[in-house]
């Protein structure tokens, strides 16, 4: 079974119950898992391969998908599926053949309602994933502002 960050702290049995809800999907190299702005109905655990998370950026008057983050096996992508307004805020693409486990929001919510302990643990893990992302980008933003200030004052 995949050691997923979303299932940290759960017993094998509880983690197994969550994994039973998952649908396995294999993405070929270059395939898109979801696109910026799409309705987010599922959260994904990466079982094998990689996922590139990108945002569009204008480079020499051309729109290019620029890498924001790369996620590896065991990591979670697509947490927009659990947070209103349920729209993906990035595009996810597989740079190589990648296997993901899709957990639909409806199935998860139903399971959490019946198993509040599991729901609590997964919510805490999700908060941790979101918190790490926030810290990462907050710091990256401060570094860019610092560079801008240095350039302006030079």
């Amino acid at each position: 079974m995949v050691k997923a960050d979303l299932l940290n702290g759960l017993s094998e049995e509880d983690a197994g119950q969550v994994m039973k809800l998952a649908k396995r999907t294999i993405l070929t190299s270059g395939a898109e898992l979801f696109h910026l702005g799409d309705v987010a109905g599922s959260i994904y655990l990466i079982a094998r391969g990689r996922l590139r998370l990108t945002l569009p950026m204008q480079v020499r008057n051309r729109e290019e998908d620029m890498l924001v983050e790369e996620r590896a096996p065991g990591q979670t992508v697509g947490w927009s599926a659990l947070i209103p307004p349920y729209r993906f805020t990035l595009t996810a693409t597989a740079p190589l053949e990648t296997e993901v486990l899709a957990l639909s929001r409806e199935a998860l919510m139903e399971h959490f309602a019946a198993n509040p302990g599991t729901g609590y643990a997964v919510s805490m893990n999700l908060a941790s994933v979101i918190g790490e992302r926030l810290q990462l980008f907050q710091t990256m933003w401060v570094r860019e502002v610092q560079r801008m200030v240095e350039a302006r004052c030079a």
Partner: protein
Amino acid sequence: MEMLLMGACLSMFGLAVTCLAFGAATRPERSAPAMAVKPELAKAAAPARFFVQPPVQAAIPIAAHARVPLEVLLLQIENHVRLEQAAVESFLQTPTSALLHSRTISTLVN
């Protein structure tokens, strides 16, 4: 004898000075082309207009000036993002002011 030696020394000194001067005059100029290109690029970024002061170009990174192929530029940006993430992860492990603003080897900002 002393006069002869003094004359020989002066001749050698004069020859050395002449060689240095010749070498300096015939040495190819390395920094001149780079200096010549920069003002052109700056002009291209901001077309000249009457009665308008040209904008300061210092804030634009070097990589933005250089007309590198698009693929290379995209790779530079991606490399920059990866290096920034690595630097930030290092900061988050040990949060200090020095690590927060640590430099990377990214060609996009250096």
